[in-house]
């Protein structure tokens, strides 16, 4: 590989940071320039993610993770970025959501408040960093970056509902960050390291009398991630926050709960996998039963939701629950299926959040969605209505396009055949039943709940769909501009591609799951990385 390619691993962090800082130099009158800057950045991030995906998955090679040493400091002392197949997959998912959400926001939402582009890019930087880093404290820093950006984005568009939900969101996440710190320092005091690979090497050596401290620290740390992922009973903030956020922001937030899941998956396989000796699998039961409770709560929430945004929020909880419970069963056959479900459900929920707003436009949801006056006037000039014309033209036969998209989303979310949602749920159930002979009662409960939650989603979506789209009202004709339709179309087309190419995607994800399960590969790649001049070690 050539010189610049060695530094590709840090590009998903540096690029949005630099561009975000650059957009701050221009005030809101140069909006067009800012739009182009951030649009080009999300496009570039997409290209970088694809390049990283290809770099970590060469044909026919047992690829070690790509390790990038910041400042060329050796691994346990310096911070490393690690790109393996799973990180590359999550990066790609993030950049797809970033691209489509920003695209959608260009139609009108980026004008709803100041500094949208800077915050949005910082959010991307934080999420990418969390997927890349190989150091727990560095993970904390990236979590704070993404949270700080998300605090600003929740308030984007202003208004009483957003201020109320935002206050709860910030308070809960600040408290959670403190739990994160307590967990990190407990783990450090027992093992003396914060590098994930070094931790994986040291956890099996922890003496018995310190094991309780280590597990306590890991449990507190895990609680922090479970709050982000939204496990019951830590999830009550999630539906109302996502419902209050502006649609493109909510569409982007659908990756945030997956960050929590990703970190839990990464740390449990690395630190508490089969090689961890006494500490192995200590949290699995919590995840299984917590996940079951989350699915149940999410299902009840979906059935009782009065508005589509709340329905989507509760669906996010269901998907969190299914992922946690499936991973908590500790069956290796189910990890790949769960990852496939993660990809499919994230894309579908994101598309759903985008499609909700044009459907509900002019309806009762307007009170929540409407853009209020800015609280702080500073240099921000011009709210939505007085600005330039909408980009693009309104599509004729909007109702057909929206209705079709809605049905598509409903099928995807509820997991009905033939779309990717069905394939994902089917492979999860298949993986659960495949294991070694006996199937415990908890797994049967999980399978029942997966099917029931799908049924509840169908019921709720049908009810909402008939109510909003097919019942004649005296509401004005629905309007959908082409800029809003394209990102929704991209997301739904990707879900379609997931269905058509399910075999190829599943094979990739199975390779990713195998690399993930091989903690020794990760550890040796990070700790034995030879110091290159460029600092990067390529497989």
């Amino acid at each position, binding site marked *: 590989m050539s010189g610049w390619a060695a530094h590709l691993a840090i590009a998903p962090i540096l690029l949005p940071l630099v561009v975000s800082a650059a957009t701050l130099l221009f005030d809101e009158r140069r909006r067009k320039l800012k739009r182009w800057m951030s649009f080009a950045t999300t496009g570039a991030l997409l290209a970088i993610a694809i390049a990283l995906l290809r770099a970590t998955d060469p044909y026919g090679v047992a690829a070690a993770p790509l390790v990038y040493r910041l400042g060329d400091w050796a691994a346990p002392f310096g911070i490393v970025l690690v790109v393996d197949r799973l990180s590359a997959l999550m990066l790609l998912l993030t950049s797809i959501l970033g691209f489509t959400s920003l695209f959608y926001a260009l139609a009108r939402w980026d004008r709803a408040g100041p500094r949208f582009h800077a915050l949005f890019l910082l959010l991307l930087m934080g999420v990418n960093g969390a997927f890349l880093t190989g150091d727990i*404290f560095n993970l904390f820093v990236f979590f704070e970056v993404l949270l*700080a950006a998300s*605090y600003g984005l929740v308030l984007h568009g202003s208004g009483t509902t957003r*201020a109320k939900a*935002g206050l*709860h969101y*910030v*308070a809960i996440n600040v408290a959670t960050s403190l739990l994160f710190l307590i967990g*990190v320092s407990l783990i450090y005091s027992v093992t003396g390291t914060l590098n994930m690979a070094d931790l994986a090497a040291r956890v099996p050596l922890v003496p018995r009398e310190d094991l309780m401290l280590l597990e306590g620290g890991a449990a507190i740390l895990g609680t922090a991630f479970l709050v982000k992922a939204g496990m019951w009973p830590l999830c009550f903030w999630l539906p109302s926050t996502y419902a209050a956020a502006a649609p493109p922001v909510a569409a982007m937030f659908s990756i945030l709960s997956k960050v929590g899941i990703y970190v839990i998956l990464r740390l449990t396989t690395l630190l508490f996998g089969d090689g961890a000796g006494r500490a192995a699998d200590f949290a699995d039961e919590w995840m299984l039963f917590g996940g079951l409770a989350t699915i149940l709560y999410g299902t009840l929430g979906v059935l009782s939701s009065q508005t589509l945004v709340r329905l989507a929020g509760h669906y996010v909880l269901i998907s969190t629950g299914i992922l946690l419970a499936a991973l908590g069963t500790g069956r290796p056959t189910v990890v790949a299926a769960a990852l496939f479900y993660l990809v499919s459900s994230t894309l579908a929920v994101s598309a759903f959040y985008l499609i909700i707003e044009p459907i509900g436009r002019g309806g009762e949801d307007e009170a929540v969605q409407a853009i209020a006056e800015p*609280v702080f006037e500073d240099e921000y000039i011009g709210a939505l209505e007085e600005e330039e014309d909408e980009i693009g033209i309104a599509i004729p036969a909007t109702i057909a396009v929206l209705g079709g998209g809605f049905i598509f989303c409903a099928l995807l979310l509820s997991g009905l055949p033939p779309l990717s949602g069905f394939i994902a749920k089917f492979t999860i159930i298949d993986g659960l039943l495949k294991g070694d002979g006996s199937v415990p009662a908890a797994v049967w409960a999980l399978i029942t709940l997966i099917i029931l939650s799908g049924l509840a989603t169908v019921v709720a979506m049908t009810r909402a769909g008939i109510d909003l789209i097919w019942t004649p009202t005296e509401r004005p004709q629905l309007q959908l501009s082409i800029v809003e339709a394209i990102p929704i179309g991209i997301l739904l087309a990707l879900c379609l591609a997931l269905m058509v190419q399910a075999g190829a995607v599943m094979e990739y994800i199975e390779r990713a799951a195998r690399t993930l399960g091989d903690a020794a590969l990760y550890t040796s790649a990070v700790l034995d990385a030879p110091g290159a001049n460029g600092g990067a070690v390529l497989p």
Partner: protein
Amino acid sequence: MEVVLALAIGILTASGVWLLLRPRTFQVILGLSFLSYAVNLFILISGRLRTDAPPIIARGDTVDASLYADPLPQALVLTAIVIAFATTALLLVMLLISRGLTGTDHVDGEDRDQ
């Protein structure tokens, strides 16, 4: 010294949690600040308590590491302090926004008692 620090962390955490559960936004912010002080002290002692031990090794000579304090928690605490400071400032702004828009300082934006 261990007892004093443990008591300090305990009292800060207890008052922080109590304040965090109060209904007024300002109390919540104070509670979060107390909690973050407690956590900062907690991080500091994860490198073990030492007196008169410098964290930075002098240039040149080979040294006995046991004579030095662990520098890493001290660096972590600095990061944690900065981040906690920034989020507290942000929360204060949220408090003002919420107070301005809803006309009350209740965390839910409405007073149930009235």
